């Protein structure tokens, strides 16, 4: 089988760089090797591509099987739907920025912040758990924390004599849900940033110091530019994470909050928009926004890979 390694003059040079050169001789129109991955792609086509494509097509379906762009226009024109997008985008941006900021500080603290190694391991393990702890149980956990009879609520009342609910603060709103989302947002940032911060080499700092640079110079001109793509990429990932969340919001606020996912969920259970096409258009909007998120994420990953490895 070692013959396979022999380079062919006409072989694609990119193929020879990987550890596994293509077994497929160039120029042959069809290779049986593709059959090996056929089940996977068939599955993806049937249950991922096709449903998505059907959403795209049906977004342009009007009443009575006509074609229309009215559904797309409705997203921008109907105030309910525009507000749903606005709220979803706001909550995603808020928790992404908040999660990225807090997560970065935590990651910094446990990597190069001078904390003991045990603290670091603990934080990383717990981040792994917390970033996967979402949905209904998380919502109930926060009800027990800061709901009417929650522990924090009672503690505030008992110690500071401060009744947060009397003060006009309800947790079942924008900020309440943001606090809940943060529980799975910042751990993800910790998980991504910790290896990135570990990747900052001591030599870079030393080189900066030898050239007379201060700590500020090091962070401003060396560390930050290196970390920036990772920071941006992860923040955008958090954004998408919050934007697509349904279970957490549903269990926490019911249908109080007019989020895009909540509206789509209601649309599935019963045609609340009285227009199937509009439901599809809303779903299409989500797919488009998430695609954008994914493109920025992939781009930033490529940038980040230049320095950190």
């Amino acid at each position, binding site marked *: 089988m070692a013959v396979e390694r022999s380079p062919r003059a006409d072989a694609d040079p990119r193929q020879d760089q990987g550890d596994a050169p293509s077994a497929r001789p160039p120029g042959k129109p069809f290779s049986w090797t593709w059959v090996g991955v056929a089940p996977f792609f068939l599955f993806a086509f049937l249950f*991922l591509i*096709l449903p998505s494509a059907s959403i795209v097509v049906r977004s342009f379906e009007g009443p009575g099987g006509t074609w229309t762009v009215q559904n797309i226009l409705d997203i921008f024109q109907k105030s309910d739907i525009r507000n749903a997008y606005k709220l979803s985008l706001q909550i995603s941006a808020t928790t992404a920025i908040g999660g990225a900021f807090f997560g970065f500080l935590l990651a910094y603290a446990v990597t190069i912040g001078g904390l003991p190694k045990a603290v670091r391991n603990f934080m990383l393990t717990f981040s792994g758990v917390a970033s996967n702890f979402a949905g209904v149980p998380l919502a109930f956990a926060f009800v027990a924390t800061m709901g009417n009879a929650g522990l924090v609520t009672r503690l505030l009342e008992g110690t500071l004599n401060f009744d947060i609910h009397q003060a006009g603060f309800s947790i079942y709103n924008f900020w309440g849900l943001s606090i809940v989302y943060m529980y799975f947002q910042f751990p993800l940032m910790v998980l991504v940033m910790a290896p990135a911060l570990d990747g900052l080499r001591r030599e870079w700092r030393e080189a900066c110091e030898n050239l007379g640079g201060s700590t500020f110079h090091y962070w401003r001109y060396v560390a930050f530019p290196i970390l920036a793509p990772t920071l941006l990429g992860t923040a955008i990932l958090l954004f998408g994470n919050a934007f697509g969340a349904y279970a957490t919001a549903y269990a926490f606020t019911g249908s109080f909050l007019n989020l895009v996912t909540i509206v789509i969920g209601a649309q599935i259970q019963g045609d609340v928009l009285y227009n*199937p096409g509009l439901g599809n258009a809303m779903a299409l909007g989500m797919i488009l926004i*998430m695609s954008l998120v994914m493109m920025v994420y992939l781009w930033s990953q490529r940038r980040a890979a230049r320095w950190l490895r």
Partner: protein
Amino acid sequence: MKRFPIWSWFWFLIGLLYFFMPLVSTLEFSLRMIKGKYTLEAYRVAFQDPEFYRNFGFSLLWASLTIVISLLLVVPTAYWVQLKLPKARPYVEFVTLMPFVVPAVVLTFGLIRLYGRPPLVLTTTPTALIVGYVVLSLPYMYRSVDSGLRAVDIRTLTEAAQSLGAGWGTILKDVIFPNLRVALLSGIFLTFAIVMGEFTFAALMSWPAFGPYIEQIGSMRAYTPQAISLMSFVITWGSIMLIQWVGRGARGQQIQIGGAR
């Protein structure tokens, strides 16, 4: 001489508080069912409900089916791509990123609308649900398996086995599988944790499962939902601990991105 890292400790403590406050609160809340004292009454009530076992059992079933199908789909594909078809890698990776682009609620919407009517009806059986779960698990499963495959020299192992006269079945079972054990277990436990707590697919497709059950209980009773939420946390926590335990000594931790919940 290093200074005491006061800010690092400060942020760490804030983080600790954020992590544990909801958990401690949930525990405390779940113990308060009988006024004036801490008891395990909420847990007793939770365990007495036959619906609890039924829904939990269904979630176990869904999780097992999802894991089996996901493994059958991902392992041969990742292996084949690594060994014979590196050209397909970008496409496979694209597919495994798709569940992030199409959130669970949107995928449910698409699946119900597409397979809820002829020619192919899948919503009357749990097929559509399992399919959704498999899609959800793809990113986690693929990345676990792929990083496992990259860590060992799969080509040399395969060629060595072949030169000793092994067939494909033997190669996969006796050579590749044992080397992938850690990667497979990671993927399995993560998928398990995700499916056990999943709400969106099961609720919107109206199949019994643990996630919708917790939500239903939440609208009927106080205290018990918190008791069950805590159990759900223990499942997640246990799964992640198992992943770390089987993966101890293995280099590098994988960052898992998947669909939002």
